């Protein structure tokens, strides 16, 4: 069995002689694109097979050497299939063919490897949505959460919680393909909602709801920068900074509005991801934690932090649940002091 590297994939064949290499299809290169036999089992010479690249011969380990057929049988297997069609990029390709000839097993390590990568891909998607006012009367799932939200006496808070939960249903469906009505939500003793089928975290300001969904534990926090400026003057920001940041955090963040809020949102995000019980900001140390912070431009400047194993590959989307837009890097600004650990 030989192969030749074409770009970042390999084309496989059975080497009989320099004049006879049997492969399923011609190498996927532009010069063979219009050939009618490009998807059939064919015998070509080594120059056609290799397209000017250097062919590699398979080196089998002990187990493979025991399993493989004799050379005579391998050649017979390959020749018996000359002219056969039915090529499929994923399910019946040149590597499947070569392995069937050599081992009698249809497998493609390349396809399996890429499929594993897809299934294990890091997902960390954050959705932002304006909170509709007045609060819509639609029910959210599960019913217990719906009852909690309806019992909320503060109109603004009820609208924010309702929007965040609606957005969660949307995000779970969109990023993870989950039918939210069939999910298993649980409420922990500490009052935190969890879901068996996904990891999620919610946050909101007065006007914007944020939802993070991931396939690893995740926490998200969102703050409006103007809100801090309205409530605190320069001196009191310094006071908050001195009081709540750990020594390690003070090495990373400046005592400015932006520096404080970056650290603060990271603390809340990290706490939501890992914490139990009450939130004691002095005890939550974000230094070295896997997190990412974004400044979201727009009518209201927002600072958004996400904490989680996949935070380094987080993507932010703006949505109204009808249309969804991936925010481009120039619409969001990554803030300094980022610690994106993979």
């Amino acid at each position, binding site marked *: 069995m030989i192969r030749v590297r*074409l*770009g*970042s*994939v390999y084309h496989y064949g059975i080497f009989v002689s320099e004049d006879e290499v049997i492969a399923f*299809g011609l190498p*996927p290169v*532009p010069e063979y*694109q219009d050939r009618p036999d*490009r*998807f059939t089992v064919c015998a070509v010479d080594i120059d056609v097979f290799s397209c000017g690249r250097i062919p590699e011969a398979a080196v089998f380990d002990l187990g493979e050497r025991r399993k493989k057929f004799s050379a005579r049988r391998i050649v017979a297997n390959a020749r018996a299939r000359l002219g056969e*069609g*039915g*090529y*499929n*990029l*994923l*399910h*019946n390709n040149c590597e499947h063919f070569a392995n069937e000839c050599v081992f009698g097993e249809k497998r493609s390590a*390349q*396809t399996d490897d*890429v*499929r594993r*990568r*897809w*299934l294990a*891909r*890091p*997902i960390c*998607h954050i959705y932002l949505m304006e909170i509709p006012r007045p609060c819509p009367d639609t029910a959210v799932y599960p019913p217990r959460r719906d009852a909690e939200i309806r019992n909320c006496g503060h109109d603004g808070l009820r609208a924010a919680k309702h929007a965040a939960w609606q957005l969660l249903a949307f995000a779970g469906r*969109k*990023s993870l*393909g989950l039918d939210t009505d069939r999910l298993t939500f649980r409420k922990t003793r500490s009052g935190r909602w969890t879901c068996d089928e996904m990891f999620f975290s919610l946050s909101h300001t007065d006007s914007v709801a944020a939802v993070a969904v991931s396939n690893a534990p995740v926490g998200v926090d969102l703050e409006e920068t103007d809100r801090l400026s309205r409530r605190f003057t320069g001196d009191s920001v310094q006071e908050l900074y001195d009081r709540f940041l750990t020594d390690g955090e003070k090495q990373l963040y400046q005592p400015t509005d932006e520096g404080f809020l970056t650290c603060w949102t990271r603390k809340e995000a990290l706490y939501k991801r890992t914490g139990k019980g009450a939130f004691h900001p002095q005890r939550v140390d974000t230094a070295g934690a896997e997190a990412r912070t974004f400044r979201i431009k727009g009518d209201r400047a927002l600072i958004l932090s996400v904490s989680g194993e996949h935070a380094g*590959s987080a*993507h932010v989307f703006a949505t109204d649940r009808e*249309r*969804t*837009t*991936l*925010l*481009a*890097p*120039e619409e969001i600004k990554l803030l300094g002091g980022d610690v994106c650990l993979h």
Partner: protein
Amino acid sequence: MTRSEIIEGLRDILLAADDRNVEALARCTEQSRLMADLGFSSVSMLYMVIAIEERFHIRFDDNVGAADFATLGDVVDYIEKKLP
């Protein structure tokens, strides 16, 4: 499923394949060329095809190769045709 929903699904797939390309993906249209504009390699093409099968629950036909898709629009056309 509408074409724009298919494009959004594809964008998620492409982000998962190569998230260093967020800027190009945020602006991608049906006319975006997979290799020239979105920096596709043969492995990202394979990744995309696998992910499309998983995400849209379709199966690519036999005798379809990566070279059959030049633009994102070509991929959307194919998925649209295969969806029930």
